[in-house]
Each structure stands twice: as structure tokens, then as C-alpha cells.
């Protein structure tokens, strides 16, 4: 019994102690992966905050944005123009979603809206692939991709720049939310739909803005993931990776999405590298969920989620 315990508890810790540089590499790899999870989770949080819609189609939006970008670049459009065009496409998509999906379903229960976004998910996957084809594409927007060594740890420029871009994006979003007029309106809507409506905030406009911002965040996430592993169908599945990040951080918290992403990213990598071999590996699929579940048992609303006060 004690042998088994020491194998599970002490063995991996000894491994960590014996090779700190490798451990550092694992942690940094986790931070970078976590940043990417955060980017996807951020799109969820934005929409959930402003409209209470749990947007399952975020993953499909990432795929759609990446496919559109690659498709445009394959047509010979220069990178900057393709980026701008894709952003425009995502904004048009936001208008379309608001008009066709959200407006007729206003005031419906959350689960109905959730289902509608799953329908949207199917639609976008089919649509994106029909427009641009289903084979794996290489995305190259000119980000550097070289490895170098720091203090005995191997690092990758691409991952570094991904982290940097994510950080910039989050800062910009924070400023947008806190300082601009629309940002204030967004926060008002997130607080209370009815109250926001009654003081004259146009709900429809706000929704379009939020979905557009989420679309652009999806574009950034698509570029990062696409540059890392090619643009392909599996991109749509990263939504599933972002879900534990969401419940860990709280559905309605932007800092939560970031912190949750980092915790999940690092935890997952450490778990996979040091504890994975003990149970036969490939634990990445569920480890994040179990980690998040353990957190939830202590704080049911996530780390940074708003405290749920219930009364009859």
C-alpha cells in the first residue's frame, strides 16, 4: 500500500526535483497552451456576460474565422487585407446571428438559446467547409517560429508571441469595457437586461457589438491555433477544451477566463507529463474537467464568478 502511495505521490515529485529545467519547460508550455485556452474562453465569457447566452458555437466561430482567413490568403489577398476582410466577415456574421437567431428567441429560457447555438455550431462547420474545403491548411501570417534556449529551457517564439498577443488583447478588452461608452453599456446590460433597456440602452446594438467582439476574439484564437497546428476541422473541438477553463474561472468573469486558462494549461501539462504515465497516458482529455470539478465543489460559481445568492 505504502509502495503504491509513494509511486503515485512521491515518484513524480522526485522527477520534478531532479530536473528543474525540464519542469520549467513543462510549466511554460502549459502557460502558453493556457493562454490559447483563455482566448477561446474569453469569447464565451463576453457573450455570456452581455446576453446570458452560453454560446457553444464559439469553437465553430474560431474554425470559421481561421478558414476564411486561410481561404482569402490562398486567393492571393495580402495578409493585412485578409485580416481586415475576415474581421468584416465576422462582424457581418454577428449581425446575421442577432437578426436570425437571437431576436426571434429573445426571452426564451437559457437552455433553448444554448441549443440554438449548438445548431449554429453545426451550421457554421458545414458552411465554412463548404466555402473553403475540408482539408488541413497551413496558416502562415508571418509570425516567427523558431526555438531558442533560456537558462537551459527550450522555448518557442511562436508560443511566446501567442502569449504576448493574448495579453495585449485582454488589456485592450479591459480598457474597452471599463473606459468607453459602449463598454459601460455592455456592463449595464450584463448587470440587468430590463434595467438597461429602461434607461435607453439599445439591447440589439449591444448584442451585435458583443458578438462582433467575440467574433474578432475568435479570429485571433483561430490565427494562434492555426499557426500552431494547421487549420482543420479539429479546431472546432477546442471549444470543449475551453469549457473546463470557463467553469474554473466562472462564466461571467474576464479575469477568470485568463486565470482559469493558465491553471488548466499548466495543471494539464504537469498532470500529463508526470502523472499520466502511471495510468497509461492520454489523460489530457478529462484531466482538466476533473480538476475544474474539484474546484467547483469548493466554489460552485467558479473562482471569479459572481456569488450566487439564492432566495425563494
Amino acid at each position, binding site marked *: 500500500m505504502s509502495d503504491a502511495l509513494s509511486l503515485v505521490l512521491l515518484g513524480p515529485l522526485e522527477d520534478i526535483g531532479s530536473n528543474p529545467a525540464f519542469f520549467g519547460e513543462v510549466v511554460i508550455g502549459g502557460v502558453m497552451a493556457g493562454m490559447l485556452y483563455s482566448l477561446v474562453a474569453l469569447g464565451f465569457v463576453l457573450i455570456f456576460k452581455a446576453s446570458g447566452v452560453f454560446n457553444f458555437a464559439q469553437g465553430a466561430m474560431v474554425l470559421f474565422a481561421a478558414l476564411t482567413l486561410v481561404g482569402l490568403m490562398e486567393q492571393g489577398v495580402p495578409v493585412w487585407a485578409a485580416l481586415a476582410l475576415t474581421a468584416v466577415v465576422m462582424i457581418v456574421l454577428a449581425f446575421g446571428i442577432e437578426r436570425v437567431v437571437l431576436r426571434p428567441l429573445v426571452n426564451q429560457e437559457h437552455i433553448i438559446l444554448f441549443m440554438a447555438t449548438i445548431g449554429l455550431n453545426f451550421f457554421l462547420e458545414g458552411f465554412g467547409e*463548404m466555402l473553403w474545403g475540408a482539408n488541413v491548411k497551413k496558416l502562415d501570417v508571418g509570425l516567427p517560429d523558431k526555438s531558442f534556449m533560456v537558462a537551459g529551457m527550450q522555448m518557442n517564439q511562436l508560443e511566446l508571441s501567442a502569449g504576448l498577443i493574448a495579453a495585449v488583447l485582454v488589456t485592450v478588452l479591459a480598457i474597452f469595457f471599463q473606459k468607453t461608452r459602449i463598454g459601460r453599456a455592455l456592463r449595464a446590460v450584463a448587470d440587468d437586461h430590463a434595467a438597461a433597456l429602461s434607461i435607453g440602452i439599445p439591447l440589439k446594438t449591444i448584442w451585435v457589438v458583443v458578438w462582433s467582439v467575440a467574433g474578432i476574439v475568435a479570429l485571433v484564437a483561430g490565427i494562434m491555433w492555426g499557426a500552431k497546428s494547421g487549420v482543420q476541422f479539429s479546431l472546432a473541438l477546442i471549444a470543449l477544451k475551453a469549457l473546463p477553463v470557463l467553469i474554473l474561472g466562472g462564466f461571467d468573469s474576464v479575469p477568470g477566463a485568463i486565470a482559469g486558462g493558465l491553471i488548466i494549461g499548466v495543471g494539464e501539462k504537469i498532470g500529463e507529463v508526470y502523472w499520466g504515465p502511471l495510468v497509461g497516458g492520454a489523460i489530457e482529455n478529462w484531466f482538466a474537467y476533473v480538476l475544474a470539478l474539484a474546484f467547483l465543489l469548493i466554489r460552485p460559481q467558479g473562482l471569479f464568478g459572481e456569488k450566487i445568492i439564492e432566495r425563494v
Partner: protein
Amino acid sequence: MIYREAGQFKTTYASDQAIFPIVQDRVVVAVAIAAAFLVPPLTLGDYWLQAVLIPFLVYALAALGLNLLTGYAGLLSLGTGGFMAVGAYSAFKLATAFPGLNIIVVFLLAGLFAAAVGVAFGIPSLRIKGFYLAVATLAAQFFLIWLFNKVGWFVNYAPSGTITAPARTVLGVMVTGPESTAGARYVMALAFVAVFALVAKNLVRGRVGRAWMAIRDRDIAAEIIGVRPLRTKLLAFAISSFYCGIAGAELVFLYLGSAETIAFDITLSFLVLFMVIIGGLGSVLGSFLGAAFIVLVPIFLTNVPHNIGLDLDVALAKQIELMVFGGLIIFFLIVEPHGLARLWQITKEKLRMWPFPH
């Protein structure tokens, strides 16, 4: 319906609280069930039974299970595929380890295993609610599938990782395995669905169902009036997983014949959730309508372009199918967010008044 309850007086509580209080309803349902048992196996070909009716019945049972949990108890779950996998793998283990065991007993035991696993993963529901719970149940989905993939014991160390339904008989008729006829498997699936639909109907109109609905509508208020949340929620998980487990066992034994874990992945969970929502949350009939919709639409979408002489590229057809499927889901949600069961109810009301609508 076209007929009315006029002239049928209820003189006892029992007749007032019957599932079908009107005589004509009872007759119609009895005839429909008898017809379902007799007509398709005798008249329809193997294609209809194997590709349409058997999956419909299997999915209907799974949707019924999820509807008890999500529609009646208000607990959103995305772990259906995982619970169905538990049913399928434990049925496989039981059937191969005890070859003499009757296959019906195997199915029921498999359901019990799934129920136990469901209770274990239902424990967080006491603290976690809504979408948080939905995501938490995904932990069950991914963990269970990983477990069945990794541990060779579950597949009897088959190198392919596939479980195959062994041949078993009920009353001398071969009902599982490659040699069984589609008709026999159809009757078997129908018998299970008919019995468990009746059980579900009785559950939800009794004490248990009322407790579930109280928890769904306002859990704190329910707790104050004396509904025990722990027992009620775990019971919902147990019974729902029991249904899903049997459906999972049927999926392998009666429909697919052999399966790998991929058959139970997250797509299956979503598919069953679609059936519940499109059919109607909190409706036994809705589970059947939803299952019929989800089984029929892809078949319809695959066959239509072919039949009108349009030869589409396979990949393109697949993509269009995805798009139309997604579009249809949104369309149905917009037209009737409460599902097909509600549409049926409206139709019934209209027919009742027909031809004098006032």
C-alpha cells in the same frame, strides 16, 4: 382529438387519475402498440427495420432517460454518451462472463451498473447548478470513454478494442448476434421501450415525479416544503442513467452489433440532448417525437438530392447536411421552443374544437 370526453363520467379517483382518462384514447393507444408489435416485422423490409426503426427505439429510450433528468428534474447533463457506454460495456462483460444468463437480465443489470455510475457523477449536482453542472457532467463523459479505451479488461483484451454482441436467445428466438433477424431485434427493442415508457409515465405523475418537478421549478422552495434535494436529485440521476444504460446496451446488442468507444463520444450526448429539446422538455411523448425527428432528418437529407436526380459530391453532401441540420434545429426552436410535443398538444386542442372553433 376529434372525439370528446362528453358522456364519460368518472366515479372513482382511480378512473379520474388514469393515464388515459378517455376510453377512445385507451383504444387508440392499445391498437397502436399492438400494431407496432405486429405490423413492421411482418410487412417492412430489413432496411426499414435496421436503419430506421431499431435506432429510433434505442434513441427513444435514451431520450426518455435524459428527459427524466433534464426535463423533469431540471438537471442539465452532457454525460449521456458516457452513461450509455457504461451500459453497453457492462452488458458485454456480463454476457461474455455468464453465457447462461438471460439477455433480458443482462440488460437490466447493465442498467443498474449505469445507475450506480450515474449516482457517483450526480453527486456534484447538489452544489453545482445550470450550465456549470452541464460542463461538470462532461467530466463523466470524457473520463468514462477514456477508461473504456485504456483498460483492456472491459473489452476482454480484444486487440481491436471492439465489443461484439454475442448470440443470445429469448424464448428460443435468436435476438442478438449476427444471425438474429432484424424483426426479432425490433420486437425486443420495442418491448423494452414500451415497458419503460409506461414506467416513466407512472413515475412522473406520482410522488417521485412531483418531487423532481418541484426541484426543477425552484429547488430552495422545494427543500423548504420538505422535498429532500439529495435523495431526489440522486434518484433522478440513478433512474435516468438506468434508462440510458439499457439504451447503450441495446445500441450495441440490437442495433450496431459491434462497437468501439467512438460510438459513445460527445456527439451522442448532444444528439440525445437534441432529441429531448426538439421533442419537448418534460414530456414522455416528446422523447419519442424528438428521437423520430433526429433519426429521420439525416436519412431524409441523404436521400432527397439523390432522388431528385441531383448528384452531389459526397463531401459536399455531408457539409450541406450539417448546414441544413443546424438550420433546422434553429428553425424548430424559433417556431416552437417547447418542442414537438407542444405542437401535438396544440393540434389536439384544435381538433377537439373542430369543426366549430368557438
